C-alpha cells in the first residue's frame, strides 16, 4: 500500500517540485588599468518575424528599439617603461591602440514598439526577447569599427594626456598609438 501511494504521487513530486537552485552569488574583483576617453550613445532597431517554422500557423512579429552606450579607451596595463622616453622637457609615449572598454544596454532603454502575434501563436516570452536583444548586442559590437569609436578614443586620449603632461611641465609631447604618431607641441 505504501509503495502504491508512493507510485501515485511520484510523478507529482517530480513535476511540481520546480525548486530554485541556490545560485552561488560570488563577486569577483579584478584590478583594471583602463582610461575610458569616449562614450558613444547609439540606437538600434531590433526586429524579427518568426514565420520560418513550417508547422506553426500564423505570424509572430516583434519590433524593439534600444539605446546602447559604448565606452572606449586605452589599456594602460599594456604600457611598459620602455614605451616612455623622456629627454629634458620632451616626453614621448607609445600607447597601445584604443579598445572597446564596455557596451551597456540598460533595461529602461529598451522598448517594445510593435508586437503582432497570430491567434495560434504564443506571445514572445522574456527569454526570447532577451535572446533577440543579445543578437542586437552582438551586431552593435561588430559595428564599432565602422562607427569610428576607436579613432575618437585615441584622439581624446591624446588630448587628455597632452593637457595632463603639460601641467606636469613638459613642453613637447609626442603620443603614438601603435604605428600612428600624434605630436602635440605645447606653445
Amino acid at each position, binding site marked *: 500500500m505504501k509503495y502504491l501511494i508512493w507510485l501515485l504521487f511520484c510523478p507529482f513530486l517530480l513535476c511540481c517540485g520546480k525548486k*530554485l537552485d541556490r*545560485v*552561488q*552569488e*560570488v*563577486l*569577483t*574583483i*579584478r*584590478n*583594471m*588599468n*583602463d*582610461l*575610458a*576617453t*569616449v*562614450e*558613444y*550613445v*547609439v*540606437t*538600434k532597431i*531590433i*526586429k524579427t518575424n*518568426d514565420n520560418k*517554422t513550417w*508547422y506553426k500557423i500564423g505570424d509572430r512579429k516583434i519590433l524593439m528599439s534600444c539605446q546602447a552606450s559604448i*565606452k572606449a*579607451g586605452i589599456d*594602460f596595463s599594456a604600457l611598459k*617603461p620602455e614605451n*616612455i622616453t*623622456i629627454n629634458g622637457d620632451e*616626453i614621448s609615449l607609445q600607447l597601445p591602440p584604443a579598445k572597446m572598454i*564596455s*557596451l*551597456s544596454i540598460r*533595461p529602461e532603454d529598451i522598448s517594445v514598439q510593435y508586437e503582432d502575434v497570430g491567434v495560434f501563436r504564443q506571445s514572445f*516570452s*522574456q*527569454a*526570447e*526577447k*532577451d*535572446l*533577440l*536583444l*543579445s*543578437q*542586437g*548586442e552582438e*551586431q552593435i559590437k561588430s*559595428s564599432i569599427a565602422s*562607427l569610428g569609436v576607436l579613432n*575618437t578614443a585615441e584622439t*581624446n586620449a591624446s588630448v*587628455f594626456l597632452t593637457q595632463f603632461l603639460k*601641467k606636469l*611641465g613638459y613642453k613637447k609631447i609626442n603620443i603614438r598609438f601603435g604605428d600612428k604618431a600624434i605630436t602635440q607641441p605645447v606653445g
Partner: protein
Amino acid sequence: MFRSIKAILIIIVVAAAGLFLLRKLDFIPSWNQVFSAAPLEIDETPVLIKEVRELASLITVTGYDEVVVDSVHADPNQIALRTLTGGLAANPFAPMFDRIVLVAKGQVICGTDLKKMSDSAIRVFDDSASVTIPKAEILDIIINPSGFETFIEEGNWSDQAITAVKIKARQKMRDRAMQQQLLSKANTRAISLMTSMLQASGFEKVTINVER
C-alpha cells in the same frame, strides 16, 4: 503470392537503406530537424549615433557579479474567477500568482573621473609632484540582455514590470559592491596607478591625495 511479398520486402529494405545512407551523408534532414522550430534571428539594421561624449575615467576595479531577483504578483483573472464562483469554476491547478525569477550576470565598474580634477590639483616642484584626485565612484553597472537568464516565467508580465525587476538586479549588484568596499579598493588602486605613472614620467617624489 510469396514472390510479391518478397518483392515488397526487398523494396522496403532498399528504401530504408537508401534513406539511412542519405541521412548519413546529410542529404536529408533528421526527424528532429524536420519538427524543430526555426531559430529566432533578427534582421540586420543600422546602428545610429545619437551622442558622443568625451570622457576621462580611470577604471581601476571591476567587480563581476551574479544575482538572483524575483517578483510575484497576483493574477487578477484567477482571483476574480475564484471570488465570483467561490472557487468552483476556477481551475484548481492554475497558479494564483504570476512569478518571475531572473538570474543576472553583470559588472560593477569603479574608478576615478579625472575630468573632475581641478586646475590646482597638480603641483610640480623640481622632481616632486603632488596630485589630488577625485574620490572613486561607481562609473557603471552593466547588465546587458545577454547577461539575463529567465529561470521561471509564469503568468503575464508587462515589459514595464520586467524592466522593474531588472532594475532591482542592478540595485542589488550596487549594494553588494558597496558591501564589498569596492570604492575603497578603487581609491587605493587609483593612488597606486597614478604614483606609478608619475614615477615613470620622471618624478622621484610623488604624493597622491584623494579628495574628501
